[in-house]
């Protein structure tokens, strides 16, 4: 199977289609692909435990590597102790690593 990097820059508090993007990540991993979901910009907002965080925790449990840009987290005052389980802070470098590795990469 293939490796994917899905970058999510939007948040479910304002954009209804973010949920569909999470579903895409879930569908890809269920199909046996290796999937990283990288949250950046306002995409990190649901990483702070909230009414919109459970889908991210579910994705992590399902085998998606859920990462959140450490700069975007810091910019929004989201500390690791407030983050939902399964989401890890990560440098943006991972995106370049995975692009260079040849992963199919989508930006939302």
């Amino acid at each position, binding site marked *: 199977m293939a490796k994917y990097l899905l970058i999510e820059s939007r948040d479910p508090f304002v954009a209804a289609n973010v949920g569909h993007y999470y579903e*895409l990540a879930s*569908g890809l991993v269920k199909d046996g692909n290796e999937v990283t979901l990288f949250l950046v910009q306002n995409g990190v907002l649901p990483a702070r435990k909230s009414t919109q965080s459970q889908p991210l925790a579910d994705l992590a449990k399902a085998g998606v590597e859920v990462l959140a840009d450490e700069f975007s987290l810091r910019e929004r005052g989201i500390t690791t102790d407030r983050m939902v389980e399964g989401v890890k802070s990560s440098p943006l470098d991972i995106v370049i690593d995975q692009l260079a590795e040849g992963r199919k990469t*989508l*930006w939302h």
Partner: protein
Amino acid sequence: MALKILSIVESAYRATLEEQDDPILWISHALKGAGADITVLLRGNAVNYAVKGQDASGLSFGDKKQTHPPNLEHDLTSFAGKGVKVFIVQDDVAERGLERTDLIDGLESSSRSKVAGMLNDYDQIWHW
């Protein structure tokens, strides 16, 4: 072998009046003309681009009239003549209160649950 590209169009009616085109449908046509092996997938609000009877004519600003309003139906239909397949996500169609008869002919059907499987058929996914 040519790169197989899936061009996913989700955002809709963003700058279509000023550009007289949807910039992503436009660039997809241009890429095909340049030799790309490209397939288009409409999802989200972009499924509305497939609706018959869209009419953006009649705009004027002072005495400056728009002479070539966007014709997105035609832009989608003309992909077929170039051998470009256009898929549409049926769940997004239904959510927007649309029936199959509201849409242009020639579209290939997909669903949210099928999109993941589709991605494996392409070398690159250009999600606009």
